């Protein structure tokens, strides 16, 4: 009896490890191994024949210097775009998530469904649709032009704003959902309590709602900022030669120039900057209660 109990206890101790095993194996095979391969490539130099170069691992940090010096404009532009898109996502998603969580009543599920609906259409098609909407001869440009709201280029498509708009549109769902979840968890009685204590609506919002929704803001920001930083489709379809992001450069280096060390170094730089940014951000906002 005692033996069986021990083995049961041992089994239940093992259970969590067994449960994370598939995920660990998955991460090992599809993240850790490729990551080391990428890191190794980024520190290699290529030689040999023109089209079948051999990669030699020799701690060639020159690839990183080159990545920074050649493409610093694109690196800076990428993070500015991703940051602006993330801020826009927060500003647009917060009121929407707030309404869904507190005011929608029986329409809650309907509105949530409507939010998710566009995402049944593939990312690529949705982005290309914006080309039609923002076309130079389109009605949006015509309407904005007639009230004098066009950017200096006199067009919308192929400008920074089109790319940022595309990023915001394509990733905003990853802001709305975590925000909604964190707002929905807030106990309405806390707001009643703040009112009882003579708080104004604004103070209730800044002292109760906003702090309690921070985990949602944090999670949403990460879910938007990280993929937006690596995105190249929006810059490709909605941008111009003046709006290329680091993802476009990496794609070109991997598939056209086929300079794998340079492309790998750029990918590592992108990852490192995101990592540092995310660490600073989570430190500033706290991480105890992600979502």
């Amino acid at each position, binding site marked *: 009896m005692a033996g069986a109990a021990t083995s049961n206890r041992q089994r239940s101790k093992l259970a969590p490890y067994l449960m994370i095993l598939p995920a660990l194996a998955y991460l090992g095979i599809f993240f850790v191994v490729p990551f080391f391969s990428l890191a190794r490539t980024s520190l290699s130099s290529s030689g040999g024949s023109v089209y079948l170069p051999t990669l030699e691992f020799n701690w060639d940090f020159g690839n990183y210097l080159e990545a920074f010096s050649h493409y610093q404009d694109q690196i800076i532009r990428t993070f500015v775009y991703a940051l602006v898109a993330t801020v826009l996502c927060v500003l647009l998603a917060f009121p929407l998530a707030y309404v869904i969580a507190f005011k929608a009543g029986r329409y809650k599920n309907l509105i949530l469904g409507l939010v998710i609906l566009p995402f049944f259409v593939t990312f690529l098609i949705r982005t290309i649709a914006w080309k039609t909407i923002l076309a130079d001869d389109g009605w949006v440009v015509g309407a904005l032009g007639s009230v004098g709201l066009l950017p200096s280029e006199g067009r919308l498509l192929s400008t920074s704003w089109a790319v940022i708009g595309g990023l915001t549109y394509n990733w905003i769902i990853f802001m709305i959902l975590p925000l909604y979840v964190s707002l929905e968890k807030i106990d309405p009685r806390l707001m009643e309590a703040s009112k009882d204590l003579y708080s104004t609506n604004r103070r209730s919002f800044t002292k109760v709602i906003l702090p309690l929704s921070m985990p949602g803001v944090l999670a949403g920001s990460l879910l938007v900022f990280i993929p937006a930083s690596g995105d190249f489709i929006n810059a490709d379809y909605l941008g111009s030669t003046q709006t*290329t992001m680091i993802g476009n450069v990496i794609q070109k280096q991997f598939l056209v120039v086929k300079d794998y060390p340079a492309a790998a170094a750029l990918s590592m730089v992108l990852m490192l900057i995101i990592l540092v940014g995310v660490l600073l951000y989570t430190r500033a906002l706290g991480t105890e209660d992600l979502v």
Partner: protein
Amino acid sequence: MSRNEFDPQILSRFAANRTSRRRFIGGGAAAAAALAMGGSFLAACSSDNKSATGGTSTHEGPASGTLRISNWPLYMADGFVADFQKATGITVDYKEDFNDPEQWFAKVKEPLSRKQDIGADLAVMPTFLMVRLHNLGWLNDISDASLPNKKNLRPDLLEASADPGRKFSAPYMSGLVGVAYNRSATGRDITKIEDLWDPAFKGRVSLFSDVQDGLGMIMLSQGNSIDKPTTETVNKAIDLVREQKDKGQIRRFTGNDYASDLAAGNIAVAQAYSGDVVQLQADNPDLKFVVPESGATTFVDNMVIPYTTQNQKAAEAWINYVYDRANYARLVAFVHGVPVLSDMTDELNKVDPEAAKNPWINPSKDVLDKSKGWGPLTDEQSKQYGDAYAAVTGG
């Protein structure tokens, strides 16, 4: 109407021919398909020695089994493949998975370097890529004995410097690379390369990102030859493009995807392929195609047999079938390229009399004299020019 423009009567016929917009919709659609399908698309290009297709090529008996073809999207006539199957008994697995030459090369080079199957027994590609594969030793020779119809090939293409005698390649379709413009957007006619740099078109010009198609006509406009390009002449053209890009003159560097922007009016002037513009004009008569005063360039797409082919004989039977003038006329009428076979007028007249009269399918001597092809490049040159231009187009 100048000699360099298209006959509007032909256009109405092409209007019905929407599926032949190879370079136009093809590029974007294939890219979209590649992205949307992701894994399955890559799987189609991955090595798989077990793929249950055709037998290994033997030199005995007639061609049979399965033939796997990789071609550009919308580069085929309706019913052509089915008729080939009926005529030969060969089953064709026809894939439109060839979109961007460099990206295709990036995908197949690892398996090919290990002599692993790439899922294609025959592929259609531009000359520079076929030369690259040949230099790497990755193409099989094509047997003249299996190709009685090779006699129909245009003599200038048969003796092309890229492959004299056409030992390892078989031209499929040719065409012109020139300038297209949207007359309602430009407000004037475009006649020369310098017009592309007119400040009035700032941010409304697109150039090809491909070295040969993009830089060729610019080098000609600078008085340089593309038959014998040098680092200096190529760099001079790249410098000009960089200067215009930095000024904000150039909106996009494109592959085959310039045409939708041109038709929509986002792009006023574009480097363009002749065949595309014919088809676009059907919807938008304001679009014009011109051979610039300093000259246009030509392209040739070629059928080649990778050394990993599993059915050499069927691939050769296919090429021979394509090289039959009556069969080929059907392809030309659909694709609107310049034929690679000689004396096509009679057969084209039978299939499509309007196409036979089209100045771009049967170009005049004047146009042909002004159209130049690139001379052969060494691997080092190709790589050097490609990287230098990519630094401008990609960043």
